[in-house]
């Protein structure tokens, strides 16, 4: 993996051969990015031991560490941008650079590229320009049985992007939490685990081998467990924490099996190194069966961690945790770990799922189903955080689908934009809940725009971005995913890796659903009349008074995230549309996507088209429009007429139409999946199965042991009986009671009387002597 080898990486994406494009000699910040996870890790230890003695109870340590990590992450980001455009492998002077050019391109092109200071004026496609060269620094951790285990960091565009997202949102959440959980009984402990989570997530993102990934993966899981169960005094919270952990553990079976398969099939039983494994797959050295097994096994891990249908059920329950945790862990960072892993190990899925040239595969289909089914569930939630949770599931479905259809950059870009607007929405819902002390939209909210105008504006921005309204962030990333399906054939625009028409359709439906449920959510929360306080019910003023706007420590993070929700989309404007300068196009893709590197498959890009953007926008507007008509017009009018703040029409279609009623019921029951898991699988394992196993243990296996014991005692007693009947007076001969598993009989030999023992001894000795004589005589 030295730089010389890296320089030999071919420039054309179609047939990458040779070792991974990687170097260990780069900018100081890229080589030492391990400092970024180290800072919050130190902060965790410090808060754990000294937090309670600090003036701000440990929060300041966490904020300082994560802040510093954020600064480092930004510097690392710039270092990467510079590295991406200007990196020349050490030891290769100008002449050798020319040689590289000769490999794949005309030499003049390559000379131009190496001369240019990056970023501007690249006229060609992504095939041109310097090959992305990842930066890896690793060291041996330990070795066992001839296998070396390394620990190290791998910095490339994807990792740098994640560093930025994780540190930024973590920093904002830290600041937000000082107000939100202020005065909590376990304030210090909360910050300690926020720090630990940040450290684990960064460790996961930077890991350069798949074993290290498992470590990070599990650590974020356990932080999620602790933080969901932050208020463990109430059973529902600890139940939710347990459910999250155990569901993820189910996926981890897949992770373990997948990683082991990759280790042997692609790593040759010698290495866990991500890039070497990816490279081996890209070069086609790995058997098809192994890849299919690995991809399918890892898929289980993705489904549990990233909330894909049917293992998504833990995510809505995880909303039992404090809201900042939901924003950080269950919207922006941890839940995208699965998506990140697919992106990181993309060759496994690209080859294993046969993404290229097909029109259906497991990953894309699971994503497509998740995005529609999750979106539908969001319509029947009363809890604002659960609406957002199902929305997150749905958006994660988009990302998984994008990866499944080969739109790698679109998926990662959606991950990037989604982190901002979803964190914004979660923190906004927290701001609302902080004020009305409830998450129930129907009972305790309504009309809040009058009380909390600032939160309202940020929430609207987040919703618009989520719904994919031009020109906010969500529009660009969602459109890119739809383009990437390659299913659009009208008025230009197609390409991609296959014709995923079904997935395009699902994506369109999802867009309409997203716009619809967000409109509903905004109406129920902010419009109509305020339903909370219950002042009228008991005649007294509610003890909290009217809702009030939140303080600056809550609002400033919201403003910042809203800013990103508006602007982030501009980072990756599509190519080939003549509305903006070329130099603005696909900046994100350019720096993040490692296409051309020898550890990345040769994916192809879809062609953007106006028609698709317009149609998908229209569909989203239609969804929003219908919801708007229903809530803002029909319900609102009725509410004005009756003077009661309503949350729906009294005789809606779900109460009159039997089909709709059944559908509604299925949604409310969350497709009965929880019944299946808790009522059937868990209950069966914990109940009959465990009990049966234990019964077998006590009665068959242990019973066997006891029976042997009893039998020996019995044979002993037979000898005993023939000698002296009187001695066994009082011996219970209740051995017929077979089911008595306690081995009561073992005792009866021990009468405790020395003389009885002596009698047995003599009897036995006499018997032995007798038989000895008889045997001799024979």
């Amino acid at each position, binding site marked *: 993996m030295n730089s010389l080898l890296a320089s030999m990486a071919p420039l054309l994406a179609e047939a990458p051969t040779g070792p991974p494009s990687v170097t260990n000699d780069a900018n100081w910040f890229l080589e030492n990015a391990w400092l970024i996870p180290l800072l919050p890790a130190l902060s965790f230890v410090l808060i754990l031991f000294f937090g309670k003695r600090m003036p701000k109870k440990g929060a300041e340590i966490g904020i300082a560490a994560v802040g510093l990590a954020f600064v480092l992450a930004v510097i690392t980001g710039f270092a990467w941008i510079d590295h991406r455009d200007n990196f020349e492998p050490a030891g290769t002077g100008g002449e050798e650079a020319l040689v590289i050019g000769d490999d794949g391109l005309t030499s003049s092109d390559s000379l131009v590229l190496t001369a240019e200071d990056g970023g501007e004026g690249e006229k060609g496609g992504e095939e041109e320009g310097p090959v992305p060269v990842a930066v890896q620094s690793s060291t041996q951790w330990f070795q066992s049985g001839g296998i070396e285990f390394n620990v190290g960091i791998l910095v490339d565009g994807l990792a740098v992007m994640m560093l930025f997202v994780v540190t930024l949102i973590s920093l904002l959440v830290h600041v937000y939490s000082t107000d939100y959980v202020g005065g909590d009984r376990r304030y210090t402990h909360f910050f300690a685990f926020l720090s630990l989570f940040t450290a684990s997530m960064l460790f996961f993102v930077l890991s350069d081998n798949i074993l290290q990934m498992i470590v990070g993966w599990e650590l974020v899981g356990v932080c999620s467990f602790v933080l969901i169960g932050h208020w463990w005094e109430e059973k529902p919270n600890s139940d939710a924490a347990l459910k999250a952990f155990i569901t993820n553990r189910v996926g981890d079976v897949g992770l373990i099996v997948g990683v082991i398969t990759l280790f042997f099939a692609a790593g040759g039983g010698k290495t866990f190194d991500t890039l070497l494994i990816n490279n081996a797959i890209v070069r086609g050295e790995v058997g098809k069966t192994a890849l299919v097994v690995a991809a399918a096994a890892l898929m289980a891990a993705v489904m549990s961690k990233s909330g894909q249908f049917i293992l998504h059920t833990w995510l809505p329950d995880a909303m039992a945790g404090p809201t900042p945790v939901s924003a950080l862990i269950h919207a922006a960072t941890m839940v995208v770990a699965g998506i990140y892993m697919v992106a990181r190990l993309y060759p496994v899925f690209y080859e294993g799922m046969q993404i290229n040239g097909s029109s259906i595969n497991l990953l894309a289909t699971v994503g497509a189903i998740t995005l529609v089914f999750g979106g539908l569930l969001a319509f029947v939630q009363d809890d604002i955080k659960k609406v957002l949770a199902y929305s997150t599931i749905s958006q994660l479905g988009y990302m998984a689908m994008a990866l499944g259809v080969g739109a790698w950059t679109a998926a990662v870009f959606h991950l990037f934009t989604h982190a901002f607007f979803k964190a914004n929405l979660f923190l906004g819902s927290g701001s609302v809940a902080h004020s009305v002390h409830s998450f129930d939209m129907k009972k305790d909210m309504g009309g809040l725009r009058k009380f909390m105008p600032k939160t309202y504006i940020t929430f609207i921005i987040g919703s618009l971005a989520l719904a994919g309204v031009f020109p906010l962030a969500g529009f660009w990333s969602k459109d890119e995913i739809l383009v990437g399906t390659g299913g659009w054939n009208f008025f230009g625009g197609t390409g991609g890796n296959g014709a995923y028409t079904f997935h395009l359709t699902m994506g369109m439906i999802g867009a309409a659903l997203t716009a619809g449920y967000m409109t509903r959510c905004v109406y129920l929360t902010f419009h109509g009349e305020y339903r909370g306080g219950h002042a009228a019910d008991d005649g007294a003023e509610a003890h909290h008074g009217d809702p009030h706007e939140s303080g600056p420590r809550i609002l400033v993070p919201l403003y910042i995230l809203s800013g990103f929700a508006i602007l982030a989309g501009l980072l990756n404007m599509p190519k080939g549309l003549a509305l903006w300068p070329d130099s603005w196009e696909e900046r994100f893709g350019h720096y993040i996507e490692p296409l051309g590197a020898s550890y990345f498959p040769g994916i192809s890009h879809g062609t953007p088209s106006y028609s698709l953007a317009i149609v998908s926008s229209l569909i989203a507007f239609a969804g929003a429009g219908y919801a708007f008509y229903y809530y803002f017009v029909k319900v609102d009018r009725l509410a004005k007429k009756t003077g009661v703040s309503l949350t729906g029409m009294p005789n809606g279609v779900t109460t009159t139409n039997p089909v709709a009623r059944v559908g509604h019921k299925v949604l409310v029951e969350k497709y009965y999946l929880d019944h299946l898991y808790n009522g059937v699988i868990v209950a069966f394992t914990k109940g009959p199965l465990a009990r049966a196993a234990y019964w077998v243990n006590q009665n068959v296996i242990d019973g066997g042991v006891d029976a042997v014991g009893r039998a020996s005692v019995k044979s002993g007693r037979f000898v005993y009986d023939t000698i002296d009947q009187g001695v066994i007076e009082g011996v219970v001969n209740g051995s017929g009671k077979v089911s008595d598993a306690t081995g009561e009989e*073992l*005792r009866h*030999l*021990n*009468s*405790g*009387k*020395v*003389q009885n*023992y*002596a*009698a047995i001894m*003599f009897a036995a000795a006499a018997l032995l002597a007798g038989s000895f004589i008889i045997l001799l005589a024979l």
Partner: protein
Amino acid sequence: MFLNQFLLLAAALFCIGVYGVLVRKNGILVLMSIEIILNAVNINLVAFGSLTDDVAGEVFALFTIAVAAAEVGIGLAIVLLMYRNRRSIDFSEADLLKG
């Protein structure tokens, strides 16, 4: 020649001893019975020793006598302790080993 008589005597003594050990409840008597058993064995040892003209028989008998002395010492100590603790040396009452 004389052997049978010795052996018969020893067997009789042995049986008496065993009977005593098994049936008598008094601790002292049980100890005495054990001594009788040991002496029955000693008679056999000496008898066989003189029969085969081997001094080992006598040596073993002496050895047994020494060990028996030690054993009686310990046995009596046990009986004494038992008496102190329970005011009785009835072996049938001692069932602390009961499982």
